[in-house]
């Protein structure tokens, strides 16, 4: 009796009752992981096509050192500036008695809805003299600071007032409290935002091309598109991947163990707001000029070109065609990415283990992979092993699906966490078969998350430029490619309607995102 000797092999008995349903998840997770690994694998295969010594020769050129310096100094300057602007703006909006806070919150996030290359277009089209390092830093900072602002604002509203009060009662002044307590609390959020900024900078092509600033991504694009040198492009891409991974590692190392933490249950007491006093004017002035530069200039220049260009060039048939293609590719990609995100999230949330965590991490990996790298990997794969796929719309859709899989997983996963497996079990104890329990319990609960994920992927794909330029089927134009074609010819008036459509597609959801973030921060979900 006391010896432990199972009568049947343990795993069969443990799994036979519920193995069939997770099998679907396992399959979906495996497909997602394979898709993510596919471009990376063939990137490496392609790069060492002519041997590692060739890769070495390509990478040890002097021009590569210049590119590296260009890329790193840009990434550092922009990230630091975004962090400063983002945190300062977030603090002003969330922690001072500023009037019209909800309006500011929306205005400050809206630049996120303008694709970076459209912002670049906005500036350069009104001042063609803008180019080089400083122009690149300014334009990218103005387009990317909301990536820090959003998480910083959310974290600021979540801080428990008690922490800061405790610091003050322990003899710290307001500045010391801000630096040692408040900043410590929002640090993980700010660092997460900074990571997104850095990754976006490494991946950006369009805006830098417009201001004629050569980073790795610009160079890779040129090597491939003009020189058609896939080996050189893939070799350089490997460096780009390493840079992205370094950024990822840097964030991990900096965020460390000091997590935002709150003792005690219940919702935190919101911190009191600071009266601005004589700082009112500088704060309002600062925020207004930030919004003016980040939002007003691109919007104003778009409106200007729309008004001017409407008389000369408006081939409305082609713009509808481009819109239709954009919608078709983006919707297909959103469907694939969301469908794959469901099993990945289910495994990560409900069957947590070494293998499922690995699948989840792989699904997040494309966040650190520039769209250009994914596109190149797919090109390398299709050119050599599946030529029918090369420059087909399917290849573009697959590229989008991989590129934006992380967005889909983020959306679906958080919904899945709100739909515990326990509820499905209750459904089964109430007489539902596994599939029916999933349909009647879990699916309705994650439906909103799936919808949000779909929308997010759709928008991102609709405004994607770099991978689209590389992969779009010949003769088939999307909003982004047509915009780019006109911009390259300096036909700003013709390009403007395409940019306006892309801004419309992504600005509305960006607006909704801020509404949701602010309402989430205000009403703590009931437990």
């Amino acid at each position, binding site marked *: 009796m006391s010896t432990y000797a199972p009568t049947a092999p343990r795993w069969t008995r443990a799994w036979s009752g519920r193995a069939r349903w997770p099998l679907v998840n396992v399959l979906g997770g495996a497909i997602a992981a394979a898709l993510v690994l596919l471009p990376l694998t063939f990137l490496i295969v392609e790069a060492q096509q002519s041997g590692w010594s060739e890769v070495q020769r390509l990478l040890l050129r002097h021009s590569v050192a210049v590119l590296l310096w260009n890329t790193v100094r840009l990434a550092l300057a922009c990230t630091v500036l975004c962090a400063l602007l983002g945190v300062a703006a977030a603090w002003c909006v969330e922690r001072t008695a500023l009037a019209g806070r909800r309006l500011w919150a929306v205005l400050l996030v809206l630049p996120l809805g303008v694709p970076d290359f459209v912002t670049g277009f906005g500036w350069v089209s009104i001042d063609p003299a803008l180019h080089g390092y400083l122009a690149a830093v300014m334009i990218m900072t103005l387009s990317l600071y909301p990536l820090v602002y959003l998480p910083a604002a959310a974290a600021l509203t979540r801080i428990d007032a008690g922490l800061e009060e405790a610091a003050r009662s322990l003899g710290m002044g307001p500045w010391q409290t801000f630096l040692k307590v408040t900043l410590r609390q929002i640090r993980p959020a700010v660092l997460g935002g900074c990571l997104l900024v850095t990754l976006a900078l490494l991946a950006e092509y369009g805006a830098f091309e417009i201001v004629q600033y050569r980073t790795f991504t610009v160079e890779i694009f040129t090597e491939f598109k003009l020189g058609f040198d896939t080996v050189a492009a893939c070799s350089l891409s490997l460096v780009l991947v390493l840079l992205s991974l370094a950024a990822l590692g840097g964030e991990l190392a900096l965020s460390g163990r000091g997590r935002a933490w709150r003792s005690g249950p219940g919702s935190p007491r919101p911190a009191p707001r600071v009266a601005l006093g004589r700082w009112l004017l500088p704060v309002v002035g600062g925020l207004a000029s930030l919004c003016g530069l980040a939002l007003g200039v691109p919007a104003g220049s778009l409106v200007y070109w729309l008004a001017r260009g409407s008389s000369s060039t408006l081939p409305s048939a082609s713009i509808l065609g481009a819109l239709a293609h954009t919608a078709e590719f983006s919707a297909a990609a959103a469907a694939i990415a969301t469908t794959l995100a469901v099993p990945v999230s289910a495994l990560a949330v409900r069957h947590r283990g070494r293998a499922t965590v690995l699948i989840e991490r792989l699904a997040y990996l494309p966040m650190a992979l520039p769209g250009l790298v994914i596109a190149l990997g797919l090109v390398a794969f299709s050119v050599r092993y599946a030529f029918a796929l090369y420059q087909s719309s399917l290849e573009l859709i697959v590229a989008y699906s991989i590129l934006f899989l992380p967005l889909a997983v983020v959306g679906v996963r958080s919904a899945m966490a709100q739909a515990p497996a326990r509820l499905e079990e209750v*459904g089964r104890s109430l007489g539902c078969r596994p599939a029916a329990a999933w349909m009647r319990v879990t699916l309705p609960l994650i439906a909103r998350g799936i919808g949000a994920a779909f929308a997010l992927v759709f928008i991102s794909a609709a405004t994607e430029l770099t991978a689209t330029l590389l992969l779009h089927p010949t003769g088939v134009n999307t909003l982004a490619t047509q915009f780019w074609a006109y911009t390259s010819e300096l036909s700003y008036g013709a390009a403007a309607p395409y940019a306006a459509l892309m801004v419309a597609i992504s600005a509305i959801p960006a607006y909704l995102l801020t509404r949701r973030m602010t309402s989430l921060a205000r009403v703590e979900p009931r437990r």
Partner: protein
Amino acid sequence: MSALAVRDLWKDYGGAAVLQGVDLDVAPGSLTAVLGHSGCGKTTLLRVIAGFERGERGVVSLAGRTLDDARTYVPPERRSIGYVPQEGALFPHLSVRENVAFGLPRRERRGATVAGLLEMVGIAPLARRMPHELSGGEQQRVALARALARRPQALLLDEPFSSLDASLRGRVRDEVHALLREQGVTTVLVTHDQEEALSLADVVAVLRDGRIVQQAAPAQLYERPVDERLARFLGETNLIQARLEDGRAQTALGTLELRVKAASGEEALTGAHSGIVLVRPEQLDVRPRAQGIAGASPPEGEDAPAGVSGRVEHCRYYGHDALLHIRPEQPGAPEMLLARVHGAHALAPGTPVTVAAHGPVTALQGPAAQPHGPAAPSA
């Protein structure tokens, strides 16, 4: 015959053996509480009975039908076992009515059946509410109605009251108890709260280290726990050195009657021997010495009122009663005694007292029985 039977059930979880040969019998229509520390495997046991997990060895059967053994596995939806998880686990996207109707066949979902169920648990006016608009007690009742809707042969409740406020808990507990009585459902309730288990259940099964160490009626369990650890788990204890002879225990607190049948089954032992007896705090009588019969020096002789003199060291006052920590001042007495007295008789620290005990008491045997004096329940 038992309605629900678990035989030699084994289950391990992440390499650790959680259930190590559990035997449990639940009589038809009775309420059995499975009592244990958090993490002792209570929930795992319920999950195996419900069919969400499989045992690795052993048998689960319901009314003679095997649900889980080496060859058989009946999936949860075909077990006819209702399950109410912790905090109710209502479907958040469905209204109260839809939650209760969830398990019913489609044509019954809109009919009088649901109305009747809502009426039964007293939540008919809340039918259109969403779960997050309900209080904890109301959620619990909806979860119960939902589980009872399919007229299950057995009902499993996982810590049903632990998420409720203390003020609400007693009332909801009584209501649920009355309802289950009325319905006559065979029920297994899992809890870590001794008081809850003792006050609610017909039978309490104590789960410890993956085994049921004792299964008995509440009073028997409290008075005759199988060992010292269990005695402590069920409430405050005084473990007192005694000389056992002829059904009596001679202790520093006097000669006390022994319960005829010791739980450990060693009543057959004849002849005098020493052992440990379990004296619950409410079995001690405490009298302030100044006005008490004991006086400053107890008179000599056989009829002298038994007891030890000591001082109150500490008094934990609860209103309805008070728990006194008394340090005896007599050699040979335990180091500390715990006595429960009526709230009106709470004594200030330092008060000199005489402590006596009234039987019957239970002798604890075995290697675990070491005289430690008083101990708080180790829950």
